C-alpha cells in the first residue's frame, strides 16, 4: 500500500510541477505571443491561414464564432462518416476490412467529433489504417483543439470589457493544434514507442503457437502516434479494442505512467493558463485545488476499495481485486488510471472497469457524473468547472449582500441561463439515456450481469457517453442500433449544447464592465470559497445521481456484504 501511496503522490506532484510551465506556455499561445516554438512554427501557421483563407486578427462576435465551431465540426463529421462507410474501397487497408455499418459509423463519428471516443467497435477488426489515422487521429487532434479554443473564448469573456468580440476560431484552432497538441504528441509518441507501442503500416502478423500449433493473429498498425494524442487530448479511443490494457498499446510500467500522466497534463495546465490570463494566479490555484481535492478523494476510495474490498478466498493470499487488471499495473496503478481517466473525460482504460469492486466502479462513474469537471476534457473540463464556479458565486455572492459577480463581471439572467444550460446537459442526458435504455426491448439481454451490477453496466454506459468520457464499463454489448443511435445523439448534444452556451456566455461577459473589487466583494480564491465550490459540486452531483447509484453500485455493494 505504501508504494501505491508514494506512486500517487509522486504522480500528482510531477503533474502540478509540469502543469505550471505548460499552462503559462499555453497562455502565450492563446494570446498569440511569441514563444520559443514561434521561429519553427510561425511559417507553418501562416501557410495554414493562407490555405484556409483565414485572417487571425479578424475578431469574431459570439454568433460567428459558434457558427464556425459548428460548421467546422459538421464538415469533420461528414468527412469521417463517409470515410468509415467507404473504407473498404480505400487504400491503407491491409486487412481488407469492409465499410462500417451505418449506425456504428454514426456512433463512432459522433463519438470522435465530440471528443468522447466511446468505442462501440474494436479498432483492430473494424477500422482500416486509413480510417484510424486520417479519420480518428485527426479528430483526436481537432476535437481537443476545439475544446481548448472554446475555453479561450470564455477566458476572453472575463478579461475583455465593453467589447463585442471573442477571438478568431481559425486562429485559436490552428495555434492550439500547432503549438500545443502536435509538439506534445510528438514527445509522448517517442516516449511510448520506445517502450514498445507499435507504430507500423504493416499488416497483422500471423504466428504459430508452440503449445497447440494453432495460428494466432497479432494485429499491428500505426498505434503509438494515435495513442499519444488519445491520451493528451482526453479522447480515449484506443487503437485496439482492449485499449491501454493491450500490451501493444501500453506495454510497460513506464509507458503506463506516461499515458496516465499525459491524460491529465493539459487539463491541469489550463487552470494555470486561466490564472495567468485573468491576472490573478490565485484564481487558477483555487480551481486546481478543488480539482485535486475531489480527485484525491475519489482516488482514495477507489484504491482502498480495490485493495481491501475484493472477495477473499480461503487459502489464497489476499492480493487486492486483481480481476480484469494487468499484473504489470497492479491494483495501485489501475486505480490511479481509473480515477484519472474518469476524472478527465478521457475514457481510455488499462483495466476492466466492470471487474472493479462495486464502490471502485461507483467512484469512477461518479467522477464522470459530476459533469467531467474534475480536470475533465481538455478545455471543456475547465469551462464546465467555471460554470459551477459561477453557480457557486451566485448563491454565495448573494449571502454577502451583493448581486453576484465573478472576476468583476456581474452575473445577470442571461449568464445564468447559459451557465444552467452548461450544467443541465450532462445529468439530464445521462438519466434520460439510461431511462430510454431500460425501456428498450431486450435491454436486459445486452448485459453480462443481472441484478444491481447489470443496472450499473447500463448506467455506466450512458454516463460515459452523456459526459463525453467514452470509457466503457465493458460487460455490455454496445454495438446495437439502439445504443449506437441514442448514444450518438447524446454525445453530440452534450458536447455542443455547452459549447454554444459557453461561447454566448463569453460574448455576454465580454460586453460587461469590470466591477472594482473591495472588502465587500466575495473572494473566489480562498479556502472558504473552495470548500463551498466542492460542496455545491458534490451536492448537485449527489442529488442527481444518488437514486440511480442506489439501484446500481450501492445496492451491488450491500447485496455482496
Amino acid at each position, binding site marked *: 500500500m505504501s508504494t501505491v501511496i508514494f506512486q500517487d503522490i509522486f504522480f500528482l506532484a510531477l503533474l502540478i510541477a509540469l502543469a505550471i510551465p505548460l499552462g503559462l506556455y499555453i497562455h502565450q499561445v492563446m494570446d498569440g505571443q511569441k514563444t520559443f516554438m514561434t521561429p519553427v512554427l510561425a511559417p507553418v501557421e501562416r501557410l495554414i491561414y493562407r490555405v484556409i483563407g483565414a485572417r487571425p486578427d479578424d475578431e469574431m462576435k459570439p454568433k460567428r464564432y459558434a457558427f464556425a465551431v459548428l460548421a467546422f465540426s459538421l464538415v469533420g463529421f461528414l468527412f469521417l462518416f463517409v470515410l468509415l462507410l467507404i473504407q473498404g474501397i480505400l487504400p491503407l487497408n491491409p486487412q481488407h476490412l469492409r465499410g462500417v455499418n451505418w449506425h456504428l459509423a454514426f456512433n463512432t463519428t459522433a463519438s470522435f467529433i465530440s471528443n468522447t471516443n466511446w468505442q462501440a467497435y474494436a479498432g483492430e477488426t473494424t477500422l482500416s489504417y486509413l480510417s484510424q489515422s486520417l479519420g480518428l487521429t485527426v479528430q483526436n487532434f481537432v476535437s481537443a483543439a476545439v475544446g481548448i479554443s472554446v475555453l479561450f473564448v470564455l477566458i476572453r469573456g472575463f478579461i475583455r470589457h465593453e467589447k463585442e468580440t471573442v477571438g478568431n476560431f481559425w486562429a485559436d484552432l490552428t495555434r492550439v493544434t500547432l503549438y500545443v497538441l502536435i509538439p506534445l504528441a510528438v514527445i509522448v509518441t517517442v516516449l511510448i514507442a520506445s517502450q514498445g507501442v507499435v507504430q507500423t503500416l504493416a499488416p497483422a502478423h500471423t504466428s504459430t503457437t508452440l503449445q497447440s500449433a494453432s495460428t494466432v493473429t497479432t494485429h499491428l498498425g500505426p498505434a503509438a502516434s494515435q495513442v499519444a494524442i488519445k491520451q493528451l487530448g482526453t479522447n480515449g479511443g484506443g487503437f485496439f479494442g482492449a485499449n491501454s490494457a493491450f500490451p501493444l498499446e501500453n506495454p510497460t510500467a513506464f509507458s503506463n505512467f506516461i499515458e496516465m500522466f499525459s491524460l491529465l497534463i493539459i487539463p491541469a495546465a489550463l487552470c494555470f493558463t486561466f490564472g495567468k490570463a485573468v491576472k490573478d494566479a490565485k484564481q487558477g490555484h483555487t480551481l486546481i485545488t478543488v480539482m485535486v481535492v475531489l480527485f484525491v478523494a475519489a482516488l482514495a476510495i477507489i484504491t482502498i476499495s480495490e485493495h481491501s474490498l475484493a472477495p477473499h478466498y480461503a487459502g489464497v493470499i489476499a492480493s487486492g481485486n486483481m480481476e480484469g487488471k494487468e499484473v504489470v499495473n497492479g491494483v495501485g496503478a489501475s486505480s490511479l488510471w481509473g480515477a484519472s481517466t474518469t476524472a478527465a473525460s478521457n475514457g481510455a482504460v488499462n483495466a476492466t472497469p466492470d471487474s472493479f469492486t462495486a464502490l471502485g466502479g461507483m467512484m469512477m462513474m461518479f467522477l464522470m457524473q459530476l459533469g467531467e469537471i474534475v480536470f475533465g476534457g481538455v478545455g471543456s473540463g475547465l469551462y464546465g468547472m467555471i460554470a459551477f464556479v459561477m453557480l457557486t458565486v451566485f448563491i454565495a455572492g448573494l449571502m454577502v449582500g451583493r*448581486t453576484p459577480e465573478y472576476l468583476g463581471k456581474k452575473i445577470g439572467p442571461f449568464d445564468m441561463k447559459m451557465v444552467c444550460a452548461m450544467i443541465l446537459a450532462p445529468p439530464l442526458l445521462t438519466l434520460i439515456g439510461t431511462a430510454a435504455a431500460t425501456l428498450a426491448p431486450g435491454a436486459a439481454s445486452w448485459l453480462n450481469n443481472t441484478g444491481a451490477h447489470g443496472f450499473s453496466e447500463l448506467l455506466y454506459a450512458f454516463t460515459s457517453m452523456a459526459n463525453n468520457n467514452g470509457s466503457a464499463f465493458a460487460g455490455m454489448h454496445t454495438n446495437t442500433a439502439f445504443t449506437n443511435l441514442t448514444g450518438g445523439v447524446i454525445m453530440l448534444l452534450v458536447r455542443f449544447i455547452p459549447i454554444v452556451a459557453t461561447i454566448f456566455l463569453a460574448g455576454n461577459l465580454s460586453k460587461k464592465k469590470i466591477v472594482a473589487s473591495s472588502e465587500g466583494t466575495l473572494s473566489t480564491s480562498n479556502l472558504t470559497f473552495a470548500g463551498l465550490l466542492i460542496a455545491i459540486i458534490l451536492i448537485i452531483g449527489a442529488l442527481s445521481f444518488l437514486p440511480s447509484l442506489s439501484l446500481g453500485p450501492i445496492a451491488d455493494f450491500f447485496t455482496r456484504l
Partner: protein
Amino acid sequence: MKLSQNAQITDALKQSVVKLNPKTQVKNPVMFVVYIGALITTVLFCFALGGIHGPGERAGFILAIALILWFTVLFANFAEAIAESRGRAQADSLRGARKDVIARKLKSADNPKDYTEVKSNDLKRGDIVYVAAGDQIPMDGEVIDGAASVDESAITGESAPVIRDSGGDRTAVTGGTSLVSDWLIIRITAEAGESFLDKMISMVEGASRKKTPNEIALQILLVTLTIIFLVVTATLLPFTGFAAGQAGRGAAISITIVVALLVCLAPTTIGALLSSIGIAGMSRLNSANVLAMSGRAIEAAGDVDVLLLDKTGTITLGNRQAAEFLPVPGVEEKDLADAAQLSSIADETAEGRSIAVLAKQRFDIRGRDMSKLNATFIEFSARTRMSGIDYTADGQANEIRKGAADAVRDYVTAQGGTWPEACDELVKQVASQGGTPLVVVRNKQVLGVIYLKDIVKNGVKERFGDLRKMGIKTIMITGDNPITAAAIAAEAGVDDFLAEATPEAKLTLIRDYQSKGHLVAMTGDGTNDAPALAQADVAVAMNSGTQAAKEAGNMVDLDSSPTKLIDIVRIGKQLLMTRGALTTFSVANDVAKYFAIIPVLFFLIYPELARLNFMRLTSATTAILSAIIYNALIIVALIPLSLKGVKYRELPAGKMLSRNLLIYGLGGLVSPFVAIKLIDMILTVCGVR
C-alpha cells in the same frame, strides 16, 4: 388608517386561496410543479377510491400526500399574500389622500382672480392653478409663485408642515397634500394616473413590481434545479421497473411517491418565499420612507461601494458652533468676547446664538440694556458677507463687524485700518482645524477671530469605519475650502472628500469612479444636482427637492434626510442576503431529505439498502410523509425571516459569508435531520405505519 395585524392576516388568508388560480400559479415555476403534483395526486386518490391503484398502495396514503401538497401550495401563497398585505394597507391609506377635488385653473399666472373651476382629474400638464390655505393641492406641480407651508403628512407621515416656494430648491409640490397657510400658484407637471401618489400606490401595492434581474437569474437557477429533480424522479419509474426485473423482486415505485419525492427535492422553500422576500424588501424601504422607482434600484443599493455624502446634516450637525475666542496680540480675550457678544445679540441664527452662549460661559457676559446703546443691527447679506452692530456708548459712535476674513479685510483696509498679520495666522489655524473663522473688528481695529466649529455627529466615525470594513468608500461633499474640508474629513473618518463642490465636479467625480468599476450612490435635491443624480447608480432625491431632481433620481426620500443613503444600502444588502441565505438553506435541506427517503424507497427491490436507513425511520410511508410534512412546515416557519430579512451586520464579505454559511448552510444541513426524525416519531406514535 393602517389595517390591524389581525385584519392583515385575515386578508392574507383569503388571498392564499384566491392565488390558487392557475394563471397566478404559473408565474412561479417551482411552486407550479407542486401545484401540478397536488392535482395529480388528487386525481390518483379519486382513482384509488374507485379501486384503481398501484400494488400495495393505500388510498389514505395518497390522500395524505395530496393534502400536504395542497397545504404546501397554500403556505407559499400565504407567504406572498402576507408580504403584500402590508403594502396594500399602506396603499389604501394613500388612496384616501387621492381625492378628486375642484381646482381653480388660471388663465395666466399673473391674475389669480381670473379662474375656471375644473376637476383635478381633468387637469392637463402645463395648466396653472391657484391654491389657497386649507385647499388640497390637486395634482403634482411646480410652484411658480408664492410661498406657503404645506402639510405633507398624507405621503410622508410627518405632521410638521414644510415650506414650499418658488424659485429655489423647494418648488415641488405633490397632489394630495394640503396648504396650511398662504397661497401658491402652481404649474401642473403630471396628469391623472401618473402622479407621484399614483406611482407610490402602485409601488407599495406591488402592482407594478416587476421581477428584478437578480430575481430572474435566481429564478432560472431554481427552475434548473427543479428540472434536474423532475428528470431524476421521473426516470426512477423506469429505473425501478428495470431494477425490479433484474433483482427478481419488488416493483416500480408509484407515481404518488415520484410526485412526493419531486416536491421534497425541488427548491420549494426558496421558491415559495422568493417573491415575499422581494416584496418585504420593498416594504422595508417604504417603511424607511423611501420610495424606489424600481426594484432594481434596491439591488443596486446592495452593490454600491462608493457613497457620496453631503457634509451638512450627514457628517456634521447642520449648525456650526462657536468654540473659542482667539484675540490678536494686544487684545484681551474678554474684550473680543464682549464685542462678539454685542454684535450677535440680535442674531437669531444658531451660529449667532452659540457666540452669545460661549461669551456667557467664558466671561459671564449677559444681555444688556439695548435701548441705552441706541443700537442698529446690520444683518448679514450675501453682498457684504458681514453682520454687525452700530451703537453709541459713552457718547461715542461705534461699529462692530464680524464676517469672513477676506470680506472683513476689505472692509478694514477700505476704512484705512491696518490688518494685523497675526490675524491671518489665526484664520489659517482655525481653517486647518476644520473650523470657520469669523473675524471681529471694532472701529477699524481687528480684535480677533471667533472659531466656529463644525460639530461632527456622534458615532459617524465608527459608522464609516464599519462601512469601510464592508468595502464601502465614503466621500464627503462640501462647499467648504479644501483645508477646512480636509480637517473635517479627517475628524469624521471619511475616505475622501470633494471640496468646493460644484454640480459639475460631482458629475465628474461620479463618472470617474464609475469608469474604475465602482457603483456610486448619492443624495441630491436641487435642479443642478439632476445630472449627477441621473449618472449615479443609486440616486436618492429629497422629497423637498425640485421636480427635476426627483425625476433624475431612482429613489425619493420622503423625509429628505441626508443620512438615509446608509439605511438604503443596508436594506439593499439585507434583501440580497436573505435571498442567498434561504436559497442555501433550501438546497442544503435536500441532503437530509435524500437520506430520509432513498434507503426506504427501494426497500422492496433491495432489502439490503435498509442498512442505509441510519435515521431509523419507521417505514417507507412515515419516511415520505415526514419529509413532505417538513417540507411544507418549513415554509411557514421561515415566513417571518423572509419578511424581516436576515440579521445584518457591517462585516467584510469573507466574515459575512462564513457567518451565513454556518447558520444557513450548516443549519440547513442539520435541521431537517432532526425535524424529520421528530415528525416520524410523532406519526409513529399516532399509529401511522
